[in-house]
Each structure stands twice: as structure tokens, then as C-alpha cells.
């Protein structure tokens, strides 16, 4: 709409909408008003009231004609449509990633001769010639050494395979890091700390862009298949959020309102976890507990729907051929006993300790990367870590395969059919029970050799994950954390099992484990350990238990999982309150106002507000005496993001608040399009400008961009309350007054800096433009 009409219609609309109306943005007279610049925080209140206005307008219009009614219905449905699209795309992308990872992981070891696009398992899918002992061999699948030299066994073949494994790993990770560097630097990392910050109202342009989506999807496959100690779960959340951002641009309801967009992003995070773990409900709870900042009930239902669609899409692609959404889905039916809670709680303690160790060490290493020479060689770092990982991982069969497969094997209970080393128990030769219910057996030599290999794998995973997370490639830490916990849990599980077998007569085993009964499930211990370690690193509780519960599909294991999760949280919290994501937010200095932190210092608003005692006075505009030139000078000389508007410099009574960006755009637009607006024109923020003689330059009326209800507190408000207001309402700034007189301003930046100062951190580390 054109400017003139917009201006003239402003006043009646305002009156109609009453005092709650901040601005009338519906018929925007010039583009880009109400948007934000890069690295700025949004004003949730303003976004909310803009959406309410928009909604009100659509409702009132819908009574006018049939077409408007249909339009309003479409608008009401658009939220669900966006969710459907997000679910479809993120489910499909997750399926593509799973399939491609499956193939590329196996490509490091060999190739399928009948069809190169098959992974090892798919290649031998129809093979009939498998005997029990070498069940995973088939003539179509050839290892590289076999293909090149013709002999599959021997030292030469081993060395050649080893060499090619390293070479492929290096190639994949080099490709990944160069793609990230050239096309989308924002695609690196796990993405969850940044998503958390964005959801709390920070703008990072391009972080959820199309190139980020493409490159993150493509490179995620590369890095996961290169065998690095990282997972795809965190990055999948980022991928889902990129999908959400993509579809938001199709609907003006979401593309023009940053607050509404964040509701969609919250739901998309749920869809991401839903496909990453095959846990739709867990995804919704993850979004609620871990990433979201503002989560109304409407978003809950929408994330529920998005998670459902995403899981359904992935299920229909069926990437693992097992009709499940994840590789490591397990099904147990064996019960657990009260006495087992002791080892479960011990695993919880281990998980907490691992969480603390990981967070401390990883943050220290990342700080080193951020501040020293190390950060100058990102490509070399990735190559070096990949090389070390590949060299150390290949000799140990538990680290050579992909981490998901490892977790899958550790979670699975040993049936009579398992051929892996971990299940090398000494069988009773005349056992003829059904396969489900096998009594505890003594461990064979295979189990013992597996145990020390697992112990080595545990140490290796612990160390290498610390150095891997945070490199300039997409990397998540759910899977490595779970692997660490699963290995530890399985070791504990086997130990308990053997103890119970060999010492039936001990008092704790006496009424729990009779000889010949199946009383200890080592796979369950692995699962509890995985939950504990994941909990220690991310400090999730409810969502973690639900995710693990959805992975097992057994209701009876909720109590062990809860016990482990809560223990690991207690232990980890005893050493430091922050989760890994919050620590990374702090390390990077993102302006994230944590809802969980408590502010207990007794400071007042007047201590925090600007201007301070010796500062120059606050830069303000007056409602009817400032000229365009004055405003332009003010904008040029200062870098404030907004200016309070007062009645006059003498009385300093507050009228409203105007955003710098809106002011700049309005003046630029007026100078281009409105005749007679020159440097000496007076800017009016009042309702109507007085009639001026014709000799005076045309006045510029800017009431439309003025926020008439800025949030104010009095100078004696305790900071505790102010911090709470900022958190709960998502304010960007708050004005400080005393009996109607403007004294100063508190911005989100001031609050964050004040909090950092109170916690003895460097207040200048917080990033703001």
C-alpha cells in the first residue's frame, strides 16, 4: 500500500484497537519495518502484539466477504500445513542420511560387486550361501584387498584394508570440511547451542538458510561415515530447523514475524529428535525441556503433529530394513530386580562424572581453539583427528564399525542365535528351551577378550570425543555419549551377570537369582549406562527417559532409567550447573538469558541502567521539536538500537520508544517518496502535527513507528524482578522512570552483562552487535 493512505488511516485504526495496540503494521507503508538486523535480539512483546493486530484485522475482514473468510481459514490452517511440510522434508532427509551413511560407512571396507549402491548388509540380503559361522560373508561383497589382490586373508590383505580404511576416512572428512568452509561455514558444529540462542530471540542471519541445510545434510553423511566419534542427532535438529525456516518463507504469517517463526522452529526441533531417535514423544519433550524458550500449548500440539509426520515419513522409507526408525532399537521382556538398582545408580554416578569430565575438557579444548594458534588450522585439525581416529579405531573391532552399530550390539541381549564375540557363552549342550528365555551362563573366552577390547574402546571413545566435538564439521554428541555409557554399562552388566552365576549363595543373589534362571540382562545395563552418560552431558531428564523408553518399548524399564538419569544429573550438577550446550553458549558469548539460572543478588534497576553516573545523558528524541537533520545526526553519532521519545527536554516525561532501524527506514523512505521532507523538517511523534505556514518545510509524522507502550520500571525495582521480567516477557529493553520522568534504560545486553559480572565472568565476552 502506498504511504499516504497508510498514514491517514493510522489514527482511526489506533482508536479502534485501543491501548493494547502498539503499532499498526498491517498496511506497512515501507518494506522492512519491524525486521531486525543480524546479531540483534528480538522484542517478543512487540512481535506478539503485531501478531495479535494482524489476527484481529483478519478476523474483522473475514466477516466482509466469502473470499476473506476463506483467506482467514487458510491463514488459520497455515500453521498445520507448515508442520506437515516440515515433517515430510525432515523425515525424508533423515531417511536419505541414514541410507547414505549406511552405504558410505561400508564403503571404507569394501564394495558390493553386483550393485555398487548396496551396503554390506544389503549386498548379502538375498545370499543363500551363508552358514552360521561366517554369516556376514557373501561372494558379492568384497573387501578392498580381496578385490585388488585376490586374497582376502593374511597380513598383506589386513595392511591394505587398514590403509584404505584410513584413506577413505581422510577423504570423507576432508571433503566435508572443505564443503563447509567454501559453501556454508554455519553448517559446522552440533547446532543445538545456536538453535537455543535463536529460539530465545537472537537473530543469526543465514544460520537456518538453504545453503546451510544443503551442506549440513551432505556433510553430515560424510563425517558420520568417516568414522569420527560423532553422531547425527544434534545436527538433525539443526537440519529440521532449517527446513522449518525454508517453509516459513512461504507464509507471510511466519516469514514476517520473528516471534511466530520461533514457534515453528520449536516444533521443528521436536521433529528433528523424532527422526533422530525414532522417538516422537521424546522429541516433543526434548524441544520443551532442552531447546525451547517460549513454548505455548499451541506449539506443543504442533510439535506433536510435526514429530508424528516426520516419524511416519521416516518409517515409510524404512532405511534400516527392520521397520524401525533407529538402528539400535531393542526389545526386552525380561524383568529386573530391586537389587539391580544399585548397579544402575552406580552407572548414574559414572554418567555424571563422564558428563563433568567431558564438559570441562571439551570447553577447555574449545577455548584453546578459539584463542590460540590452533584455531587457524581448522582443515588440518579435522584431517589430523580423523587420521588418529582411523588409525586407532581399525584394530579394535568395536571401534571399527559405526558407533550406531556398536550401540546396537551392546544394547542387544545375547540370544542363542547371536554369533558375536560378546555372546560367546558356554552353552549347556542339551539345552532345548525356546530362544527367548535363556538362563544365565558362564562366560566363554570370547566374552573375556571382548571385555578388554571394550575397555580399550571406552578409553578411546572418551578421549577422542573430547577432541572431536567442536571441530569445524557437523558433529553431534548424543551418539558418542551413548556409546561411552553403553560400553561401561555392558561391562558392568556382564560383571554382575557372572557374579550372579558364580555366587548363587550370596545373600543378595539368594532370593533373586536361582541357578538356571535368566536374571541379569547385560543389554539393559548398557541402555541404562547410555541414558546416564547422555544425561550427564546434556542434563536432560524427562525427555531422556522418554527417548530411551521409546527405544526399548518396554514400560517396565522406566524406573531404572529414571534412577540413572536423576543420579547422573545430581552428580553432574554437583560439579557445575551448565549442560554442554549452555557451556558452549557461554563460551561463544551468545546473548542467552537462561531461564534456569537464579538471580539472587540485591541490586536495583538504578545500578544497572544507563546512563551511569559519569556518562553523558541519555540520547532521547522529543515529540515535536526535533528536526530530520537532528535525528540523522543522532543516528549517525550513536549506535543505540532505539531511542526513547519524551515530551520535551525539560520535563523528560516519557511518550514512547522508537527503534533505530524503523527510524532509519522511515526517514529514508520519506526522503525518497514524500515531497517536501528536507533536513529542516520537524519530526512529529504527536497524534497530529499542527498546521504550519506554507513557508515552513513539510513536517514528517512518525507516530506510526512509535511504540506507545514501552515497558517501564521504577528506579527502585530490584534487579531480581527486572531479570524475571526480561526472561518471562522476552523484552529487548526496559525504560527506567521515576514519577513519570525518564531516568535511563536497561537493555538485554545490560542485564546479561550485569549477570555475568555478578557471577564473576568477563562481561565483555557477550556477543552483541
Amino acid at each position, binding site marked *: 500500500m502506498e504511504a499516504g493512505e497508510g498514514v491517514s488511516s493510522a489514527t482511526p485504526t489506533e482508536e479502534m484497537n485501543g491501548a493494547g495496540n502498539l503499532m499498526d503494521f498491517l498496511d506497512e507503508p515501507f518494506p522492512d519495518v519491524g525486521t531486525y538486523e543480524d546479531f540483534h535480539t528480538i522484542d517478543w512483546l512487540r512481535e506478539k502484539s503485531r501478531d495479535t493486530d494482524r489476527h484481529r484485522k483478519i478476523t474483522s475482514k473475514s466477516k466482509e466477504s466469502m473470499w476473506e473468510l476463506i483467506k482467514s481459514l487458510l491463514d488459520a490452517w497455515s500453521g498445520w500445513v507448515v508442520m506437515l511440510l516440515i515433517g515430510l522434508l525432515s523425515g525424508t532427509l533423515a531417511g536419505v542420511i541414514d541410507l547414505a551413511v549406511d552405504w558410505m560407512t561400508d564403503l571404507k571396507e569394501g564394495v558390493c560387486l553386483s550393485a555398487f549402491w548396496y551396503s554390506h548388509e544389503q549386498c548379502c540380503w538375498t545370499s543363500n550361501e551363508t552358514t552360521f559361522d561366517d554369516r556376514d560373508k557373501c561372494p558379492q561383497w568384497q573387501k578392498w584387498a580381496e578385490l585388488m589382490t585376490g586374497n582376502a586373508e593374511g597380513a598383506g590383505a589386513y595392511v591394505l584394508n587398514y590403509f584404505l580404511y584410513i584413506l577413505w576416512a581422510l577423504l570423507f572428512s576432508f571433503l566435508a570440511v572443505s564443503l563447509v568452509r567454501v559453501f556454508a*561455514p554455519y553448517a559446522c558444529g552440533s547446532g543445538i547451542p545456536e538453535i537455543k540462542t535463536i529460539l530465545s530471540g537472537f537473530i543469526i542471519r543465514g544460520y537456518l538458510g538453504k545453503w546451510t541445510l544443503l551442506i549440513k545434510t551432505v556433510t553430515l553423511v560424510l563425517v558420520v561415515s568417516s568414522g569420527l566419534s560423532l553422531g547425527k542427532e544434534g545436527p538433525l535438529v539443526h537440519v529440521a530447523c532449517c527446513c522449518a525456516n525454508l517453509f516459513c518463507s*512461504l507464509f507471510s504469517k511466519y516469514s514476517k514475524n520473528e516471534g511466530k517463526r520461533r514457534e515453528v522452529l520449536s516444533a521443528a526441533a521436536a521433529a528433528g529428535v523424532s527422526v533422530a531417535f525414532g522417538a516422537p514423544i521424546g522429541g516433543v519433550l526434548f524441544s520443551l525441556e532442552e531447546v525451547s524458550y517460549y513454548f505455548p500449548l499451541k506449539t506443543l500440539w504442533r510439535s506433536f503433529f510435526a514429530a508424528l509426520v516426520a516419524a511416519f515419513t521416516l518409517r515409510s522409507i524404512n532405511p534400516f530394513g527392520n521397520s524401525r526408525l533407529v538402528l539400535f532399537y531393542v526389545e526386552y521382556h525380561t524383568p529386573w530386580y530391586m537389587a539391580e538398582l544399585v548397579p544402575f545408580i552406580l552407572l548414574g554416578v559414572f554418567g555424571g562424572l563422564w558428563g563433568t569430565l567431558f564438559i570441562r575438557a571439551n570447553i577447555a579444548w574449545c577455548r584453546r581453539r578459539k584463542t590460540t594458534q590452533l584455531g587457524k588450522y581448522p582443515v588440518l585439525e579435522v584431517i589430523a583427528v580423523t587420521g588418529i581416529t582411523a588409525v586407532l579405531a581399525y584394530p579394535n573391532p568395536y571401534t571399527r564399525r559405526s558407533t550406531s552399530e556398536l550401540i546396537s550390539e551392546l544394547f542387544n541381549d545375547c540370544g542363542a542365535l547371536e554369533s558375536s564375540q560378546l555372546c560367546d557363552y558356554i552353552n549347556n549342550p542339551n539345552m532345548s528351551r525356546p530362544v527367548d528365555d535363556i538362563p544365565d551362563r558362564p562366560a566363554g573366552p570370547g566374552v573375556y577378550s571382548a571385555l578388554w577390547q571394550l575397555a580399550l574402546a571406552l578409553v578411546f571413545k572418551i578421549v577422542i570425543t573430547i577432541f572431536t566435538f567442536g571441530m569445524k564439521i557437523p558433529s553431534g554428541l548424543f551418539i558418542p555419549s551413548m556409546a561411552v555409557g553403553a560400553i561401561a554399562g555392558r561391562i558392568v552388566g556382564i560383571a554382575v551377570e557372572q557374579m550372579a552365576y558364580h555366587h548363587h549363595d550370596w545373600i543378595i543373589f539368594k532370593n533373586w537369582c536361582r541357578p538356571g534362571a535368566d536374571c541379569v540382562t547385560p543389554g539393559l545395563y548398557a541402555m541404562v549406562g547410555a541414558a546416564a552418560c547422555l544425561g550427564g552431558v546434556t542434563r536432560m531428564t524427562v525427555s531422556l527417559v522418554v527417548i530411551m523408553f521409546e527405544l526399548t518399548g518396554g514400560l517396565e524399564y522406566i524406573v531404572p532409567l529414571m534412577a540413572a538419569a536423576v543420579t547422573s544429573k545430581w552428580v553432574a550438577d554437583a560439579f557445575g550447573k551448565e549442560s554442554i550446550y549452555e557451556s558452549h553458549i557461554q563460551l561463544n558469548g551468545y546473548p542467552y538469558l537462561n531461564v534456569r539460572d537464579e538471580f539472587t543478588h540485591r541490586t536495583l534497576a538504578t545500578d544497572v541502567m544507563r546512563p551511569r553516573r559519569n556518562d553523558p545523558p541519555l540520547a532521547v528524541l522529543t515529540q515535536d521539536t526535533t528536526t530530520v537533520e537532528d535525528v540523522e545526526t543522532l543516528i549517525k553519532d550513536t549506535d543505540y538500537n532505539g531511542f526513547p521519545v519524551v515530551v520535551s527536554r525539560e520535563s523528560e516525561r516519557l511518550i514512547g520508544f522508537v527503534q533505530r532501524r524503523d527510524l532509519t527506514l522511515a526517514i529514508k523512505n520519506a526522503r525518497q517518496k514524500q515531497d517536501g521532507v528536507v533536513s529542516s523538517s520537524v519530526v512529529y511523534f504527536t497524534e497530529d502535527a499542527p498546521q504550519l505556514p506554507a513557508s515552513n518545510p513539510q513536517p514528517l509524522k512518525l507516530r506510526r513507528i512509535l511504540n506507545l507502550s514501552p515497558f517501564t520500571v521504577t528506579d527502585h525495582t530490584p534487579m531480581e524482578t527486572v531479570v524475571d521480567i526480561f526472561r518471562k516477557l522476552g523484552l529487548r529493553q526496559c525504560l527506567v522512570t521515576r514519577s513519570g520522568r525518564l531516568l535511563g534504560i536497561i537493555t538485554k545486553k545490560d542485564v546479561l552483562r550485569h549477570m555475568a559480572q555478578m557471577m564473576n565472568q568477563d562481561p565483555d565476552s557477550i556477543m552483541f552487535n
Partner: protein
Amino acid sequence: MSSGREGSWNLISAAVVIVFLLDAVVFAQAKSFEDVRCKCICPPYRNITGHIYNRNDSQKDCNCLHVVDPMPVPGHDVEAYCLLCECKYEERSSNTIKVTIIIYLSVVGALLLYMLFLLLVDPLIRKRDRYTQPLHNEEDSEEMHPQVDGGLARGNTVLERVEGAQQRWKKQVQEQRKTVFDRHKMLS
């Protein structure tokens, strides 16, 4: 601000979605002969070694009695032997796998070619351009911005618009690279 670029991007994303939907259609077609199997794993029993049996069978017929053929044990032992065997009916879609892997590889290939183009060929072209148009050298990114926008508004042919969009995109990536790799302000 950049409707042309947005339009082309939407077109591309629509194309990608269509490709994926096609992918889904391909997989939804009737399961081909080699896409279903019934796999029975039978553990060692008495003096018989463990065996794995694989058959293309319908879900209904997926049990030990149908699949294990020839039966390694005499008639009266069949029941006991079959109790031990675990039979699983599995489905896959070989077409989905094939199409996905080929699409993935072509995307990676295209990205690689474009990367090589940007790193090797593009600087050469720019260098030659700089001799003919000395105005167009590398200024500070913020100074450059309105110029590029102006160029976009003038350029009406598709090629010019693509060129403008590419320039703008390159600026953005450069900015991101500075933030992430050089200044270590984010994502470290």
C-alpha cells in the same frame, strides 16, 4: 528485497521436494522379487551346526516349517528344532536405496564441481575482469552492498540476475567465514 533469488530458490527447493516424492513413489511400487525375504536363523542343535536360511516368502508363510528346507533333522525332532529357530520377515526397497545413493552422489559431485569452479576458475575470470573494469575491485563489503543491489535492479536478463544473486551469496558466505573461521566469534 531479492524476489528473483527467492523465486529461483523456491523453484529449486520445489524441484528437490518433487525428486524426493518421486523417490517415495518409486519405493511405494509393488515390492520387487528380491525385496522381501524370510530369514530363519537356526542355532546349533545336537550334532547339527547352525544354519541360516533365506527365502523369498510371503509374510504368511514365514515360519520354520516352510523355510527350512531340506529339514536337517528327522521327523520327530522337527518341532524341537523349529522351536529354536528364529524366523524374521523383512522388507526393503532396493529402488529407494539405489535412487537415494545416486541422487546423493550426484549432489556431492555437483557441489565438488562448483567448489572447484569457485576456487580455481572463478578467480581467473575475476582477474581478467578487473583489468577491463577497474571500478569493480574488492571494496569493503558494506560499501559494495548497494552497488550490487543497483546492479541487480538494472540487470534484467536471467544471467545478470543469477550473477547478482551469486555475488550477494558469496558476500554472505565470506562474512560467515570471517565470523566462524577467522574471528572465532561463533561456533567454536
